[in-house]
C-alpha cells in the first residue's frame, strides 16, 4: 500500500512536501528489494545537496545502495533513530523509517518527481 499524497523517484524514494520542507524516505518496494537493512549513513544537517545527488548510503545484509536527494536544498534534519534502528526502514518505511528533511531551494524541481500513478507503473514493470 503506497500512500496517495506523496511524490516518488525512479530510485524508489518517497517525498512528502509540506510548505518548503521535503521529508524523504524509501518506499516499501525498495525496502523489500533491499532486504534487512542493517546500516544507514545520512548526510550532516546543514549540508546543501543537489537534486538527485547521492547523499547517503543504505546497507542491507547483502547489498549497498545509495540514498539520493530527490530535491535540492539544505538538509535541516535527519532521523537519528535510524543509527541504532536501521530496521525501521523495513518495518515502517513510510513512517518511522523516514530518513531526512530538506528545505527545498527550487520548487520547480518538484516537477521532476513522479506521482503515484507513474511510480506504480514503474514498480509494476520491475
Amino acid at each position, binding site marked *: 500500500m503506497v500512500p496517495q499524497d506523496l511524490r516518488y523517484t525512479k530510485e524508489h524514494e518517497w517525498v512528502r512536501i509540506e510548505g518548503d520542507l521535503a521529508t524523504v524516505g524509501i518506499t516499501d518496494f525498495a525496502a523489500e528489494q533491499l*532486504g*534487512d537493512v542493517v546500516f544507514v549513513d545520512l548526510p550532516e544537517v546543514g549540508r546543501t545537496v543537489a537534486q538527485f545527488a547521492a547523499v547517503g548510503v543504505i546497507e542491507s*545484509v*547483502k547489498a*549497498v545502495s545509495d540514498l539520493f536527494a530527490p530535491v535540492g536544498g539544505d538538509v535541516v534534519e535527519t532521523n537519528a533513530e535510524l543509527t541504532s534502528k536501521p530496521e525501521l526502514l*523495513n518495518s515502517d518505511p513510510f513512517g518511522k523509517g523516514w530518513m531526512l528533511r530538506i528545505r527545498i531551494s527550487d520548487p520547480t524541481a518538484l516537477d521532476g518527481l513522479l506521482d503515484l500513478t507513474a511510480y506504480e507503473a514503474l514498480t509494476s514493470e520491475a
Partner: protein
Amino acid sequence: MAQANDAPLATPLADRHQALGARMVEFGGWMMPLQYTGIIEEHRAVRSKAGVFDLSHMGELYVEGPDAAAALGYALTTEPANLKVGRAQYSMICWPEGGVMDDLIVYRLDDERFMVVANASNASVVSDALAERLAGSHLILDDRSLATGLVAIQGPLAQAILAPLTGLALPDLPYYSIAQGDVAGVPALVARTGYTGEDGFEVIADVADLGRVWDALLEAGTPLGAVPVGLGARDTLRLEAGMPLYGNELGPDTTPFEAGLGRVVKLGKEGDFVGRAALEKASADGPRKLLVGLMVRGRGIARHGYEIFLGDRRIGVVTSGTQSPTLGQPIAMAYVTPSEAEPGTIVDVGIRDQRVSAEVVPMPFYRRPAKTTDARA
C-alpha cells in the same frame, strides 16, 4: 555440468521455493533461494532452533574401485586412505602451482567407495580435474551432481527434528561422519556435517526423492520453530563461524596455508600429489598474506573487495564482510600482509571515501554453546 554460458539449472525443489515465496538468485550456475522471509530471521532461526537448506547445487562425485583411496591421495592434499569407513574429512584440491582449486568434503562410504562434495561453481572443474588425475587407476569416477540432491538441517534442534524421520541412530553418528539409511522413507546418505557453525546434518538423496525429504523436515520442524533458509543466511552463518567460501577466501591465487588451512595439506604423506612441490615451497617460504578476522570498530560495514590500510600503506583486502546478526556488529574476513595479522592489530578499512577503524581478531566470530550436541569430533 553447468557452464557459465548455459541457462542456470533448476533445483529439484524449485516449485517448493516458489510456493514459499523465496527470492531466487543465480549462484554457481543454479537458480537458488536467496531468502524466504528475511536473512536475519532465517539466520537467527538456525542459531536458536533449526533451518532447512536446499543445497542441491553442490557437486557430488563418487569414486569407487580398488585404487580409489590411493588415487584420491594423489589428486587431493589430504590422505583419504586414513579415513575410516563412515567418516569424513575436510580437504582441498589444489592446482599444480599450489593455489586452491576448491575446498571439499571427502566421505568414505565403504573400503573402496568415496564421495567427494564440491562447490557448485567449481563442480565441473573439479570433476574434470579428478577425471584427469584419476585416469589409469582401477576405479570409476561417477559425477552424480545432477542426479543427486542435498538438503541440510542445521541448528540445535536438528537432531530432534531428523531423528523421528530416520531409522538411523543419530546420537551414534559423530561430527564428520556419514551413514547410509533412510529419511522420510527414501534411501539417503545422512552426514553430520554443515556450514553454519551449528550441529546439523546433510541428507543426500536422489533428485526424484528429495522433495519428500524436504517436506518431511519442514513438516516435523515447523512446529519446533524450524524455517527454510536461503543462501543469504547461509553466507552470514558461515562467516560468523569463520568458514571460508571459495571465490572469496579461497581461489587459485591463494594457498591453503595462507587461508589458515595448512592442516589439510599432508606434506608428510607418502607419494606424490598434485601441487606437492609448489606447496612444499610455499610452506618453506612462508605465506605472502594471511587470512584474518576483523571487527569493524567505527561506523560502516567492510565488504568484499574493500582495501585495508595501516597508515598510508595498503596491506590487504576484505574477502567477506557483513553485519553479524548474532553479534550485532560488522565482521569481516580479510587477507593482510603476514606482519599485520596478529590479533589486536588496529587497521583501517577503506569504506567508500572514508577510513574506518577495525581490529584484527581471532576467528571464529561465533562458537556454538557447548553441549548442544552429541557430536564427538
